């Protein structure tokens, strides 16, 4: 995006060699860049999966910080009937003048209890709450400082110790597929040999298709991009779900200090592409598709939620005064209580019935008079 060259020449040569007058809106990308750097970015990432699959380690490796310094892990007996919690960590990180406010939403307790039916409900409720809050803020009068807490991406960790997806994985992803961008990952990838890894990925892809789970799809490259990018894009798509390894420790390999795991039989390097897909994940998540994830959240998931919300509100108003959907969105003063809505609907029904009866009686009287 360097258009400093364009600054210099006032005239631009078009395709057929003629010189055109230079207007100057080619600098728009620069202006956008400058403004966005000033404003700063925000990103909310949710991590979900059973305990012990390496979620915290991966986040530390992705963002090269230590987010989970004083974490207390529960014992097994405490986890027998544990409920799912939502914990948010917010950090401000900066790189080359670009500020990023990163929020990590953690879900400890998911999949840990002995009875896990509907354990995803807490998580879906949280996501919907964020949507609702944004909806209210957006419909409010003072919209200057809207804070966007909507979850932009959910990294779901699949256990590598099984043969593929488990019932709890399928249920979770199906419950969240329409609310958030799901990126499934195979965690602790150093447990599978390359052949086993290929089998596992194929299996997981098959099962995702079989159960009709909508995971985040990478946008296709434009057809006029160069071949190298297209190749990269293809490779990226074929290696989903990503098999990742995380590490909190730094080891020395061939004179270099890298993040890795030290074993008696060798050293696993986190950033080595032949060892795992960590680099691909990082590139996808941070370096190329972060904004796309935000866009899909805003354009697809949030809009779906908003449309649903409005539809619910107007359908309860329709029975009262026969007006079709009003152009101004009706501000929800309080969260529509399901119980009172039902009551209102019942009362409306009763009213209608009584009106019908009245009409019939009037008719009868009229006939009698005749």
């Amino acid at each position, binding site marked *: 995006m360097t258009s400093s060259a364009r600054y210099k020449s006032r005239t631009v040569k078009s395709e057929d060699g003629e010189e055109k007058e230079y207007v100057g809106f080619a600098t728009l990308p620069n202006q956008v860049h400058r403004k966005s750097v000033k404003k700063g970015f925000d990103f909310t990432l949710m991590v979900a999966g*059973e*305990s*012990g*699959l390496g979620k915290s380690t991966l986040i530390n490796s992705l963002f090269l910080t230590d987010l989970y310094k004083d974490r207390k*892990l529960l*014992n*097994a*007996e405490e*986890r*027998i*009937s*544990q409920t799912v919690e939502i914990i948010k960590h917010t950090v401000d990180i900066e790189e080359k003048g670009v500020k990023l406010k990163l929020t990590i939403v953690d879900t400890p307790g998911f999949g*840990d*209890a*002995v*009875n*896990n*039916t509907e354990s995803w409900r807490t998580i879906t409720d949280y996501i919907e709450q964020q949507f609702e809050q944004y909806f209210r803020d957006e419909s409010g009068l003072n919209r200057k400082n809207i804070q966007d807490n909507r979850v932009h991406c959910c990294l779901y960790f699949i*256990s590598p*110790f*099984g*043969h*593929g*997806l*488990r*019932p*709890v994985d399928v*249920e979770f992803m199906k419950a969240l597929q329409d609310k958030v961008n799901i990126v499934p990952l195979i965690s*602790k990838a*150093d*447990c599978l*040999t*390359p052949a086993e890894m290929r089998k596992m990925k194929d299996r997981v892809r098959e099962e995702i298709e079989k159960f009709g789970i909508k995971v985040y799809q990478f946008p296709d490259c434009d057809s006029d991009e160069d071949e190298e990018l297209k190749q990269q894009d293809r490779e990226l798509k074929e290696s989903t779900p990503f098999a990742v390894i995380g590490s909190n420790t730094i080891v020395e390999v061939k004179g270099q200090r890298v993040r890795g*795991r*030290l*074993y*008696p*039989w*060798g*050293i*696993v*390097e986190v950033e*080595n592409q*032949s*060892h795992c897909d960590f680099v691909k994940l990082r590139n996808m998540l941070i370096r190329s598709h972060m904004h796309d994830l935000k866009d899909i959240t805003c354009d697809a998931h949030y809009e779906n939620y908003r449309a649903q919300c409005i539809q619910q509100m107007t359908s309860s108003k329709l029975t009262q005064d026969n007006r079709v959907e009003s152009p101004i969105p009706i501000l929800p003063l309080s969260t529509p209580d399901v119980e009172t809505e039902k009551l209102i609907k019942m009362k409306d029904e009763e009213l209608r019935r009584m009106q019908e009866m009245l009409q019939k009686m009037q008719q009868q009287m009229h006939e009698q008079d005749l």
Partner: protein
Amino acid sequence: MASSDVLRQPDKNARPLALSGHVGFDSLPDQLVNKSTSQGFCFNILCIGETGIGKSTLMDTLFNTNFENFESSHFEPKVKLRAQTYDLQESNVRLKLTVVNTVGFGDQMNKQESYQHIVDYIDTQFESYLQEELKIKRSLHNYHDSRIHACLYFIAPSGHSLKSLDLVTMKKLDSKVNIIPVIAKADTISKSELHKFKIKIMSELVSNGVQIYQFPIDDETVAKINTAMNGHLPFAVVGSTEEVNIGNKMVKARQYPWGVVQVENENHCDFVKLREMLICVNMEDLREQTHTRHYELYRRCKLEEMGFKDTDPECKPVSLQQTYEAKRQEFLGELQRREEEMRQTFVQRVKEKEAELKDAERELQGKFEQLKRLHADEKSKLEEKRRSLEEEMSVFSKRKAATELLQAQSFNTSTNNKKDKDRKNSGFM
């Protein structure tokens, strides 16, 4: 196989005698060994662990064969157990090995009932042995002992601690079977993490009162190695049936881009320790423990449930036969009483029914009489009416005759008059 004491208490009535020569009964252990070798040995292992955690692969690696297991799916609705029996032979020792695997363990959303199937299976094996023991004509030495001698519990290598399901299941099983916990897929954990993980697991087991199998330390020949091994529990194992060429030898290993994990390398994992402890050193002890501790506990609980006691209310020792006879008499008495009751009830019912029927008969009779009387009444009334009617008729007919007579007389005179008139009239003309 009565319980064998390792340390024999010196009998008070027997005095120790010194031998002046070689008698030869020191060959008794050899005779025993020969006998048991010719009989063949029997060993049953239960493997409990999540689907895909490596149970079948570890069994294949341990016994150096291919047991032909197939992958199970994650979507089983309930936990099932699959048992397969194999005949193995090494040197001249025959082993009848039964491997029982759990299918679908840890996959359901609600795992509260997962342990129940396993407990039921173990109890069933104990029950069938108990039944065989209590038979009148029994053949214990031919009996295929299917009781579980060892239970390998596969812990997932999360690196943090036990899962809640593991704790709940092991607590239910520790009094029924010898539990040997192993950390599966141990090539995912680095050495330092492994150390912390093992300590955490053992402390959790101890604090929750789970009794896992401890290798016996009372036999001096193996006490030293067993004590050392007890400190390495739970064993971190890696299983593999594929072979990799390492320095001219083909060894069982797993090949990664970053290195090769050798299964039989003690530096890499505890597989060799597990094999030694489970098979080479303590197999017989596992069988013995199963019989003397777990089976006896089951048997005692079961018999107490059925009502047998070792001493009757007056604290005199009661043998099984006496108790059994007493129970039988009780049962027969009960049976007779019930029969009597039934018979009496039957007689009662019959009487009642008879009385009812008699009542009905009487009623019917009464009604019949009534109707008959009514009928007779009506008939007499009718007769009377008829008589009166006949009387009337006769009266009427008499009157009628009288009137007719009168009429006839009057007519005669009138006709005479008329004749005269007619003559008169006609005379005029």
